C-alpha cells in the first residue's frame, strides 16, 4: 500500500510540470534563455522523449537523490530542501511538546467533572480557538508581542540558525511554534476529553475506584492509555498537516523553512524547487501517518489483531 501511494505521488509530482501552458522548457527558463540551458533542462527532464519514458528518466534521477538544479539560483534542489527541512522539524517538535503538555492535563481536568464549571470554560475556550485560523493568530501575536511589547527576536526576519545561537534561535521560533501549538492543542484536548469521559465510565475504572486507588493514579495508569488511541491517530494526521500547512507562519516571519522556500519559489516561478518540495512533503506526510498507525498498534495491540 505504502509503495503504491508513493508511486502515485511521484507520478503526480512529475506531471505537475506538464500543467504549465506551452513548452515547459520555455516556461521554466523564460523566452530569452540560451539554447544551452534549454537543452540541459531537456536532458534533465528527458522532455524530448515520450511521456512514460520521461517519467522513468526523472524518477531514476530522484532515486539517486538528484531532484535537479534550480535554473534560477543555480543550486541543487535537494541541497535547498536539506537546509530548510530541519527548521520545519524544529518548529513542529516545539509546537507538539507545548500542545501535549497543555492538552493532556486540561483534558484530564475536564473529564474528571464533565459539564462542571472548569470543563465548560475549557470547552468554550477550545471551541473559540478552533474557529481562529493560524494566520490570524500569528498576525495578532506579532502585533502584540513583537510590535506593541517589543520583545526582541520575535518579529519578522529575526530568524537565527540553531547552530549559531540557540537561545536567539528559540526566541525567534517562539511565536510560530506557539501558533501551531494552539491549533494542535484544540484538537488534542477535544479528542482526549471525549475519550477519557467514555473510558471513565468503564467497569474497570469503577473497580479501580472501589479498590481505593487515587484519582491521579486512575487517570494516568488506568484511563490514559486506552483513551489515547484516537489521540495518536489525530496527532499523526495533524503533524502531517503541519508539515504541509505550516507555511504561513514561516512566510510571515521570513523563517527559511520548507514552507517559506515553497512560497518564495512559487513567486520566482522556480518550478523545479516547487516540484521537489511537493514530492518531499507528500512523502513525509505519508511516512508520518504510517509511523503513527504503527504507534497506535503498540498502544492498543487489539487493533492489529483484528
Amino acid at each position: 500500500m505504502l509503495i503504491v501511494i508513493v508511486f502515485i505521488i511521484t507520478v503526480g509530482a512529475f506531471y505537475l510540470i506538464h500543467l504549465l501552458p506551452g513548452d515547459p522548457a520555455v516556461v521554466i527558463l523564460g523566452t530569452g534563455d540560451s539554447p544551452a540551458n534549454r537543452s540541459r533542462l531537456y536532458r534533465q527532464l528527458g522532455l524530448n522523449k515520450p511521456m512514460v519514458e520521461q517519467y522513468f528518466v526523472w524518477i531514476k534521477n530522484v532515486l539517486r537523490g538528484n531532484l535537479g538544479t534550480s535554473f534560477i539560483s543555480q543550486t541543487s534542489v535537494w541541497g535547498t530542501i536539506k537546509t530548510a527541512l530541519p527548521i520545519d522539524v524544529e518548529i513542529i517538535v516545539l509546537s507538539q511538546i507545548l500542545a501535549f503538555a497543555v492538552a493532556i492535563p486540561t483534558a484530564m481536568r475536564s473529564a474528571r467533572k464533565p459539564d462542571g464549571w472548569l470543563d465548560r470554560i475549557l470547552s468554550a475556550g477550545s471551541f473559540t480557538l478552533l474557529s481562529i485560523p493560524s494566520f490570524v493568530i500569528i498576525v495578532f501575536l506579532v502585533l502584540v508581542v513583537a510590535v506593541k511589547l517589543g520583545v526582541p527576536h520575535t518579529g519578522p526576519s529575526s530568524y537565527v540558525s540553531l547552530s549559531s545561537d540557540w537561545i536567539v534561535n528559540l526566541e525567534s521560533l517562539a511565536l510560530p511554534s506557539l501558533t501551531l501549538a494552539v491549533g494542535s492543542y484544540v484538537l488534542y484536548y477535544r479528542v482526549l476529553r471525549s475519550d477519557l469521559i467514555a473510558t471513565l465510565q468503564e467497569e474497570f475504572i469503577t473497580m479501580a475506584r472501589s479498590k481505593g486507588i487515587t484519582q491521579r493514579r486512575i487517570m494516568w495508569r488506568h484511563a490514559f492509555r486506552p483513551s489515547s488511541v484516537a489521540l495518536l491517530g489525530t496527532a499523526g494526521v495533524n503533524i502531517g498537516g503541519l508539515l504541509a500547512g505550516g507555511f504561513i507562519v514561516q512566510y510571515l516571519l521570513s523563517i527559511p523553512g520548507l514552507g517559506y522556500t515553497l512560497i518564495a519559489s512559487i513567486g520566482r516561478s522556480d518550478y523545479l524547487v516547487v516540484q521537489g518540495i511537493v514530492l518531499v512533503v507528500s512523502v513525509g506526510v505519508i511516512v508520518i501517518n504510517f509511523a503513527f498507525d504503527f504507534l497506535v498498534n503498540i498502544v492498543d495491540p487489539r487493533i492489529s489483531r483484528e
Partner: protein
Amino acid sequence: MYVNEMVEEATVHDRPERKRRLGLLFWLCVGWIVVNVLAAILANVLPLQSPILQNYATINAGPSWHHLFGTDDLGRDIFSRVVFGSRVSIEVSLGAMVIGFGAGAPLGMLAAYRRGKFDAILSSVMYVFLAFPAIIATIAVLSFWTPRSLLKIIVVIGVASIPLVYRVIRGAAMTVATKDYVVAAKVQGATDRRILMKELLPNVAPIGISFLLVGIATVVTLEGALAFLGLSVNAPTPSWGNMINESLSILQTNPWLAIFPSLAMCLFLLCLNFIGDRLRAHFDVTEAKL
C-alpha cells in the same frame, strides 16, 4: 433489576425531548450566516461605497461614520471591502462543496449499498488519493495551472474534497445499509433507486450536513491561506484572506485593516462550527464519524 431497567428506560426516553431544543445561540449563529450570505449576494445593490475606489484624501483612517471600519492604505473603504470580500469566501466554499458532494456523496452511497467489486475498486482509489496531502496538492496545482481564476480555485479545491466526502458518506451509509428496515424494503421488492432515495438518503443526511458545515469552514480557511500565497483571486478584488495579507505591511500604522477582515472571518467560522456542533448533538452524530 426490573426497577433499574424501568428507570433506565424512563431516562432514555427523556433525553431526546431535551435535545430537540437547539437554543437561542444556535439560531443567532444561523441568523449571522444568513446575514453574511445575503450581504454577499446583494453587495452590488446595497448602498456601499465601491470596494476598489481609491481615495487618497483619506488613507489609513480609523472607523468613523463615513467609513464604518475605516479606510486602507489606498483610501478604500474597509467595510465595503469586507462585505465584498465575503463573496469570494462564500463562492469558493459553496462551489467547492457542490463539486465535492456532487461527486463524492452519490458514489459513497452507491458503494456502500452495492458493495462487491465496485466498492472495492472505488474505495482503494479514493484511499490512495486521501493519502496525498490535499493542501500541498492544491497549492501545487494552482501554482502550475496558470492563469488563475476563481473557477479554477473552486474546481481544484472541489476535486480535492471528493475523496473526503466519499469516505464520510460511505461510512455513514454502510451502517444504514445493514439496518433491518433497508433489508425489509429490499424483501418487499423496492427498487434500488427507491431504497437509495427514501431509506438511505434521509438517514445519511444528518452526517452529510454536519460534514458540509465542517467542509465550508475548512475551505474558507483554505482560501485565506491560499490568499497569503498569492494563489487566490487577483488584486484589487477583495477577499478576507487577501485583505489580511495586504494589511501585514502596514500593521503598525493601521491595525484596523487586519482586525476587521479577521473578525469577519473568525465570526463566520465560529458560527459554522457552532451550528455543526449543535446539529451533531441534536442528531447524535459523534465527531469520530467525520
